[in-house]
């Protein structure tokens, strides 16, 4: 288990519980009682800290290495998953996964950023930072879904599009622009779930959907707090202040009508109980897809476009 800075007191208590569990015999009843007492304390601490996470703390939770990734959602929720690769142009970009599968019996096209879990897979997936070919693949798959009347589900989890010379040379900006354009053009339901980090253009390229769900402790922002701090505060140390100022939390984004619904996370964040987090996302996805299924394709498209035309008409009080 990886602990975040603000989780130190919790980590200490859980360490003690572990120690007690390993103690053999010697007055077992007392040990059990002590463990119970400490567990209650842990839960109370978790409830207290996770009930009022600051935007900067949420940023850390959203980036937590044990947080479920797109591949975890696919593995748990999508049967018959059939990965599809390539932009038919330059490369297969493993920073974005895509493919056909079934979600609760229905064919779906799933597209998502994948950050990777260990060093090897992180490198393979380029830490979830896609190059133009990743967005071009996403666009191809969205068009395929549209062609075959299959709803699209996107899982958004990226620090941002890959900032590199090669990516620029091949038209990173154009690729993102076309991906957004395709999101807004298709006539099938587009359901986007921001599961971790919604980093800037790299995120909205997959997230201009009919319904946008966001996990309770995920973030979605025009720039990372660190990036914003170094530009506006001229100091990376001000990331905490920048996170605050950017209003990048699910709660604030719902107030701004940027997202539609918040998926509650298990106590202590999705990384403490990935199974429960994924199940809770699935229930929200199911509800969203069912209501989108009732709407005719042209209307879906029109509503999606109108929704994004309206962006910026509601501010924070």
């Amino acid at each position, binding site marked *: 288990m990886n602990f975040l800075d603000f989780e130190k007191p919790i980590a200490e208590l859980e360490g003690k519980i572990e120690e007690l569990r390993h103690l053999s015999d010697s007055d077992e009843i007392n040990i059990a009682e002590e463990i119970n007492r400490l567990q209650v304390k842990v839960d109370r601490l978790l409830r207290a800290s996770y009930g009022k996470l600051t935007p900067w703390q949420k940023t850390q939770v959203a980036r937590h290495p044990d947080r479920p990734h797109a591949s975890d959602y696919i593995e*748990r*929720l999508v*049967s*018959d998953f*059939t*990965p*599809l*690769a*390539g*932009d*038919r*142009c*330059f*490369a*297969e*970009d493993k920073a974005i996964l895509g493919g*056909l*599968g*079934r*979600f*609760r*019996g*229905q*064919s779906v096209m799933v597209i998502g950023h994948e950050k990777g879990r260990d060093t090897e897979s992180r490198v393979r997936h380029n830490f979830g930072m896609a190059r133009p*070919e990743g967005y071009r*693949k996403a666009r191809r798959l969205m068009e*395929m879904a549209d*062609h*075959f*009347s*299959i*709803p699209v589900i996107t899982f958004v989890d990226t620090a941002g599009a890959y900032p590199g010379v090669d990516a620029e040379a091949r038209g990173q900006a154009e690729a993102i622009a076309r991906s957004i354009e395709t999101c807004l053009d298709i006539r099938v339901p587009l359901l986007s779930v921001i599961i971790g980090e919604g980093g800037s253009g790299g995120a909205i390229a997959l997230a201009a959907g009919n319904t946008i769900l966001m996990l309770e402790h995920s973030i979605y922002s025009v720039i990372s707090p660190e990036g914003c701090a170094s530009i506006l505060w001229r100091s990376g140390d001000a990331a905490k202040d920048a996170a605050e100022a950017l209003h990048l939390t699910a709660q604030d984004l719902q107030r701004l009508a940027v997202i539609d619904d918040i998926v509650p996370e298990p106590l202590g964040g999705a990384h403490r109980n990935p*199974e429960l987090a994924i*199940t809770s996302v*699935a229930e929200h996805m*199911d509800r969203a*897809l*069912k209501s*989108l*299924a009732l709407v005719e394709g042209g209307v879906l498209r029109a509503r999606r476009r109108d929704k994004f035309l309206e962006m910026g008409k509601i501010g924070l009080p």
Partner: protein
Amino acid sequence: MNWLTNFVRPKIQSLVRPREVPDNLWDKCPQCGHMIFHRDLAKTLWVCAHCDHHMRMSVKARLDMLFDGAAYQRIELPKGLVDPLKFRDSKRYTDRLKDSQAKTNEQDAVVVAHGRVGGVPVVVAAFNFAFMGGSMGIAVGDGIVAAAELAVLQDAALIVVPASGGARMQEGILSLMQMARTTVAVAKVREKGLPFIVLLTDPTTGGVSASFAMLGDIHIAEPGAVIGFAGARVIETTIREKLPPGFQRAEYLLENGMVDMVVHRHKLAETLGRTLGLLRHRGAAGQLLPIAVDLPDSFEAEPGV
């Protein structure tokens, strides 16, 4: 469209008569050099048991492998113009055709059949590399057009299995024109919203790769298959460099974004069936199938709950 009337009451051609292959015949794996019993190769679908090399296989074996229960009907293709340029090099083209026809017991380099794959109605057009290197002339164009029209007529998916060196030089410019002609044919399948899957086998090059074979909704390639436009030798001579290992192989194309997946021959039928099922049996939102959600044990309801 006179071939369509044939389709209504199809003249079921007897499939390629299995040529008498003596049991003691050995084949040599072109990759590892192992000698393999011919009848063992049939069992492994011409995949070398020693090095997993995917050898070329006959059209009949290919169709048997792809269709559910090896059940399908071949359709008779229309008879088009033969040898429009009265072409001859060291030999008359008509004689070359006759030789290939005698050798393969087929009229030309493509076979069209229909049946089901994974329960989904499908039309398959499969190339016969043994017939003049699977080269595409008017007759092959006819085959692709017929397959596409049949798919539209039957509301079926289209699978094309190229194995071709490219255009048939002996038909000159008219073979080049088949690139555009087959492109129109597969576009019609697309316009009807029917799946068009290309199963790229060794080799898919030249005019075939540069037309319908790169226009599928989904591209599946067999491991190690050579897929490309220009021949490796031509490229080497032009750039005066040795080409890297794996150049123009299926895996190289996967990495370069040109194919969706590289699938072992033993898994091809299953993969095609699953993919077609996802595209054609879409289900409705919220329709619960028992296979849908694979919850971990901890999420199973307590007994009695």
